[in-house]
């Protein structure tokens, strides 16, 4: 989010990251644990491949499409979380604009912001899906 000062920019990003991190961590952990039990990982381990290689080539690679989709969704979560963070930390960004518009009943601003944010979210999701499709196709 466009913050005025360097100090503000750092605070905002750290706060948003702190909000998103636990959700993403638990989802990613469940996803990778599920793949860890898959047959091909078992076979790779039996062939004596190193753990790092197994993680990168046999666990991360198949999970990459879902991880990219998760990255797309996290943009939406970050934009949602930016409203209270920016309102509370007094940082000028989209979130604070939406908050001030809501308090002053400025509906045109609010509706346009919602449409803008939805467009950004959809673009991020589509981008994630596209990259996942290209990578997934190349991997097979």
């Amino acid at each position, binding site marked *: 989010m466009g913050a005025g000062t360097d100090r503000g920019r750092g605070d905002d990003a750290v706060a948003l990251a702190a909000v998103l991190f636990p959700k993403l961590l638990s989802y990613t952990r469940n996803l990778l644990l599920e793949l860890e039990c898959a047959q091909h990982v078992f076979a790779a381990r039996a062939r004596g491949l190193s753990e790092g290689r197994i993680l990168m080539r046999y666990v991360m690679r198949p999970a990459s499409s879902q991880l990219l989709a998760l990255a797309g969704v996290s943009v939406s979560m970050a934009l949602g979380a930016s*409203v*209270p963070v920016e309102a509370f930390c007094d940082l000028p960004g989209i979130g604070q604009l939406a*908050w001030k518009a809501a308090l002053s009943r400025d509906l045109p601003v609010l509706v346009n*912001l*919602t449409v803008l*944010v939805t467009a950004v979210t959809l673009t991020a999701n589509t981008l994630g899906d596209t990259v996942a499709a290209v990578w997934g196709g190349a991997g097979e």
Partner: protein
Amino acid sequence: MKQLRIAAMGVLVAIFSASLAADLLSPHPYGEQYRDAVNAAPSRAFPMGTDDMGRDRLSRLLHACRVSLLLAPAAALVATTLAGLLGGAAGYLGGTADRVFLRLSDLFLSLPWLFLFLSVRSLLPLNAAPAVSAVATFLLLGVLGWAGPARVARACACGLRQSDFVMQAKANGRSPMRLLLVEIVRNLRPVLAAQFWLAIPVFVLAEANLGLLGLGVSEPLPSLGGLLRELENYQAVVSQPWMVAPAIILIGVTGCLHLVLGWEEIRR
């Protein structure tokens, strides 16, 4: 781990029963202003001190818990009922109804929820009576939170549509409405119950977000989100550390709900 979950259950029961008995436990009325004891430190008369308008913090905290912790399950009930009816109907009917349902829920899922709440909440009057604003806030959460649970309900209803007992009920000549309500929605109950429990912490936090922004429950009536607004003043928090109690209660409730729900998951 099991002891931890039992302890979490104990904390939840304690907080819920304290908030139910808010009228009996709180030493003062939540809106009463004691002008001669503004920003007072904890004392025998005010166990957790008073806020900058001279209102007893403990009484306000107890009533805030009652507002947030009773209305959040009510909102979750609204959301899951809507989800059961819409998702069940879409899964059962299939075809065009299903496609319309899917597009509509896609739209609701991709809208960033806080922006949606802000837009709809600002359509409602700000100067409504406190009780009305509390009910309106949570009703809004319930009505706008249907999409996620409804997708789950739809997926299960799709499976139920092909089941033998629905076929038999059809052969017995049951009306479509009765089929939907009796055969489909009633068999979705376990799924909807899980969605109901998962929705409660989400709605408690959503109200806290709205309250923090000053768009939740309106002033004299306390809510957990409304009480968090005081924390904005950093200097005051340092000099009066007991002000963080609402934040601790909020973290405690959502954390304990998380632990207890994890237990449900494992037992299943």
